[in-house]
C-alpha cells in the first residue's frame, strides 16, 4: 500500500447511506500492533511488549478478577479443511495461554475465561478439549485460572442484569451470566475476521457471545430461561422471529428490522456500553477471510501475521479493520459491511465508547500500513 492509498483509506468518509454520525468527542486511545508471522513465535514476548506500549497492564489487573471473553464460535467439530480451530476462526490457544501468563505475572487475582459455546451448557473445559486445547496447560499458565460457560446459568445461581444507561439501540436491558458482573476487568480476546452479517468480528462483536442462549437462543424458554440450550441464537437477535425469555425485556422497537447485520450490530454496540471492555486483544496471526466460520461459503484460511491490542475496543477494532484493508468508517453496503449491515464500530462510537477516526488513534509498534493484510482483493 502506498502512502497515497493509505491516506485515501483513512480519509474515506462513510457512505451516504450511513445515517450515523461520528461522535467527535468519543474517546481515543492508543492501539499496539505487533507482527507475528506464526504461532511458533514468542507470542508471550510480543504481547508483553504490546502491553508495555499501551502503558502496562499491572495497574489495571493487580489483585483484580479479570474475565476474558474468548472467541470459540461454532461447534468445535466444524473445521475449515480439517485445520485446527485456532488457526482459522477460534482464538488460538497459544495466545490464550500467553494472555493468562501475562495477566498472572501482572498480579491478577483471578483469571476467568468465558464463552457461550454453541448449543452447550456443560463445562467450558469440555469444549476447549474438543477444540484441541490443553486445559491443563492453561490452568498452569497463571494462578487463579478458571473457566466458565456463560451460555446459561451454568455454575451460577442467578443472572446479572445490565441496564443500558440511556437509550439503547435494541434492548433496554441485557440479562447475562453473572460472571460478567462479578468481574473487575473485562477483556475481549477476539479473532481478526470478517463477519457475513456484521462486516467484521473483532473485540466488540466477539462479545455477542456473552448473550446466553438460555434467554436469547432459538430454544430459549418463553417464560423462563432454558438452562439446557441445544440450539444457537438466530431467532431472537438475528432474525426477530421472537422475543427473548421473559426474564429479559423485549426489544425497544419491534418490527423495525429483521436484518441480522442491523440487529446484531446494534446489540453488540449496546453491549460495549453495558459491559465495558477494558482491554481488547485481537489474534490475527492466522485466521480466515470471507466470514466468521467454516459454515460461510467461500471462506479461506489466511495468515495476516499480526497481534493487535488496545484499551479501547472501538479504537482497537477501527485499527484492526484498517489492518484488514477496510475503511473502519465505511457505511452500509460498503466493504466490509455487505448484506445491508450497519457499521458496528460506528454504532459503538455513536454511543460514545470510542472513536473510529484513525487520525485520532495513535498506533504504537508496527504502523498500520506495514501490518496491512487485505482480506479482500
Amino acid at each position, binding site marked *: 500500500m502506498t502512502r497515497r492509498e493509505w491516506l485515501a483509506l483513512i480519509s474515506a468518509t462513510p457512505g451516504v447511506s450511513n445515517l450515523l454520525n461520528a461522535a467527535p468527542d468519543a474517546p481515543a486511545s492508543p492501539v499496539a500492533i505487533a507482527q507475528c508471522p506464526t504461532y511458533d513465535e514468542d507470542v508471550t514476548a510480543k504481547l508483553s511488549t504490546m502491553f508495555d506500549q499501551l502503558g502496562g497492564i499491572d495497574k489495571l489487573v493487580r489483585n483484580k478478577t479479570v474475565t476474558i471473553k474468548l472467541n470459540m464460535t461454532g461447534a468445535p467439530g466444524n473445521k475449515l479443511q480439517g485445520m485446527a480451530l485456532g488457526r482459522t476462526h477460534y482464538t488460538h490457544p497459544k495466545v490464550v495461554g500467553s494472555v493468562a501468563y501475562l495477566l498472572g505475572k501482572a498480579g491478577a487475582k483471578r483469571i476467568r475465561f468465558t464463552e457461550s459455546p454453541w448449543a452447550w451448557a456443560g463445562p467450558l473445559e469440555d469444549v476447549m478439549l*474438543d477444540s484441541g486445547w490443553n486445559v491443563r496447560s492453561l490452568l498452569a499458565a497463571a494462578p487463579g485460572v478458571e473457566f466458565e460457560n456463560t451460555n446459561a446459568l451454568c455454575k451460577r445461581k442467578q443472572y446479572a442484569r445490565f441496564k443500558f444507561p440511556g437509550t439503547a439501540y435494541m434492548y433496554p436491558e441485557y440479562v447475562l451470566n453473572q460472571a460478567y458482573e462479578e468481574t473487575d476487568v473485562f477483556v475481549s480476546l477476539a479473532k481478526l475476521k470478517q463477519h457475513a452479517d456484521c462486516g467484521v468480528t473483532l473485540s466488540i462483536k466477539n462479545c455477542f457471545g456473552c448473550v446466553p442462549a438460555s434467554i436469547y437462543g432459538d430454544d430459549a424458554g418463553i417464560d423462563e430461561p432454558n438452562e439446557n440450550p441445544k440450539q444457537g441464537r438466530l431467532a431472537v437477535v438475528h432474525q426477530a422471529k421472537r422475543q427473548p425469555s421473559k426474564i429479559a425485556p423485549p426489544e425497544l422497537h419491534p418490527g423495525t428490522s429483521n436484518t441480522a447485520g442491523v440487529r446484531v450490530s446494534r446489540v453488540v454496540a449496546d453491549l460495549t456500553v453495558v459491559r465495558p471492555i477494558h482491554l481488547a486483544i485481537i489474534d490475527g496471526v492466522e485466521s480466515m477471510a470471507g466470514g466468521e466460520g467454516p459454515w460461510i461459503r467461500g471462506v479461506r484460511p489466511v495468515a495476516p501475521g499480526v497481534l493487535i491490542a488496545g484499551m479501547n475496543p472501538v479504537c482497537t477494532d477501527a485499527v484492526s479493520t484498517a489492518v484488514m484493508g477496510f475503511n473502519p468508517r465505511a457505511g452500509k453496503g460498503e466493504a466490509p459491511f455487505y448484506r445491508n449491515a450497519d457499521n458496528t464500530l460506528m454504532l459503538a462510537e455513536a454511543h460514545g465508547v470510542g472513536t473510529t477516526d484513525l487520525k485520532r488513534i495513535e498506533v504504537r509498534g508496527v504502523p498500520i500500513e506495514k501490518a496491512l493484510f487485505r482480506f479482500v482483493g
Partner: protein
Amino acid sequence: MIDMRMCHAALLSLLPLVCSAAPKPADWVPVRWPWSDTQSLDLLNGTPVNCLLLTRATPEFVAAAAARGIATLAVNFDPAFPVDGMVVEGETASVNRDAQKLVIELLPRYKMKLGSPAPVIGTYQGVWPGIAADDGKTKHSGPTSSAWIDTNTGFLRAVRAFGTSTVWLANRPPEKTIVSTARYLQVIAEAAISGARWVIAFDDDLARRLAKREEAALGTWKRITALLAYFEQHPEWREMKENGTLAVVQDPSKGGLLSGGILDMIAVKHTPVRPIAGNRLSAEALAGATMAVNIEGDALTPEQKEVLRGFTRSGGMLLNGPPGWKDPTPPAGKITLDEAELDRLNDMWKDVNNLIGRRNMGVRLFNVSSTLSNYLGAPDGKSAIVHLVNYSDYPVESVTMHYLANYPRATLITPEGKPKPLEVYKTEDGWGVDIDRVVVCATIKLEQ
C-alpha cells in the same frame, strides 16, 4: 512316454498341500489379486499378505504362491488344479461344492450366515468409509454441524457380536475413482479396529501403476502393507471385546446389518458402545454396562426381558425402543437406511442421544471430530485398548482421552513409530491422557 509338462504341473499342483505351514483361514490377510503372473508375487515380499483372491489362475502361479506360504482362493470358479479354497461371491453366485474344499462366502449383507461356525464370513457390500461430502444441505450447513463419517464399523461390530468367525469386508473402491493412499489406509484401519479385515482391492489406476512398478504406486503399496503389518503384529487386539459401558441390544439380522444406523450414530458421537446380539443377551454380556438401549423392545423372549429387568434392578439404566417400533430389516441390495427409515430412526436417536449426552461411557474423547474409535477390553480385564482412525486428510492434533477404569499406565502405539509411554493424570471421573498427533490411526494401550 510321460509328458514332462504334465508331470511338472502335477507336482506343482501338490504344493499347496505340501506347504503345511500355511496359516489358518482365520489368520489370512486377503488381497484381491488382479494378476496371474508369478512375478507379481514379488510385490508380496516382506508383507503380511498371505492370501490371494483370484479370478483366474494357472497351476504355476498357484504353486509359486504356495511356495511362498501364500494361500490362493478361486473366486467364483472351480479350477482344475488344487487351490486352498474357493470364494463364492455375489447374490446368486454358486460353485460346485467339493466337501474337501474350503469355501468362503462373500454374500450380500442380508444373506450373511451370522453365527456360522465357518472360520471366515464375509460380504462384498460396504460403504466406502470417509467424511461425508458436503451436500450443501444439512450436513455442513451451519455452525452446529459436525462431520458425519460414512462407516462400516457399526455393521462390523454388530456381526462380530453374533459369532466368532473372522469377518471379511470385501467391498471394492468406488468405480471410476482414484483412491488416495490415505483412503486405503482408512478403510483398512476401520475394519481392523472393528476386529475385521478389509479384503484389499486396488482401484484400476493403482493396479495399472503397480503392474508397471511405478515408484509412487509402490510407495502406496508399501504404506498399505505396513499398516496391515501393524495390525497383524497385534493378534491379541482381535480377541478383545467392546468394553464401553453403553450396551446396544439389537437383532443383528436387522438394523445392525445396515450402515448409518444407531451403532454408527453412537460411533460418530465418539461414545464407546457394546453391541449385544439379542439372542446372546445375558447378564454376563451386560457385565460392567451402566446403560442399555434395547432397540426393538418387543422382539425379546421373556427370558431375555428378564435379563434386562435384572440389569435395571442392579442400577442399570435402560432405554427401550418405542412400543411397536421395528428395527428395519435390510432389503436385498440395500446397506444403508433410506430417508424414511432415517426419519423413523431419528425419533429413537433423540432418546438415545439424550440418554448418553456427553457422558463418559468408559472412554471419552475430545477433539476427535474427524475420527472414529473403538474401546476394547482384554478378556482378563487387565488391559484395554482404544483404537482411533482419522478420516481427514490432515493429522489430528491434541487429542485428549478421559477414561474411567483404573489403568494407571498408558502407551501410544502407532504405525509410524515406537510405542510411547503417555503421561497419565487424574481427572474428575477417572484418568486422562493427551495424544499429540494421530495421522491415520493410533492405539492407546491401557494397563493396570
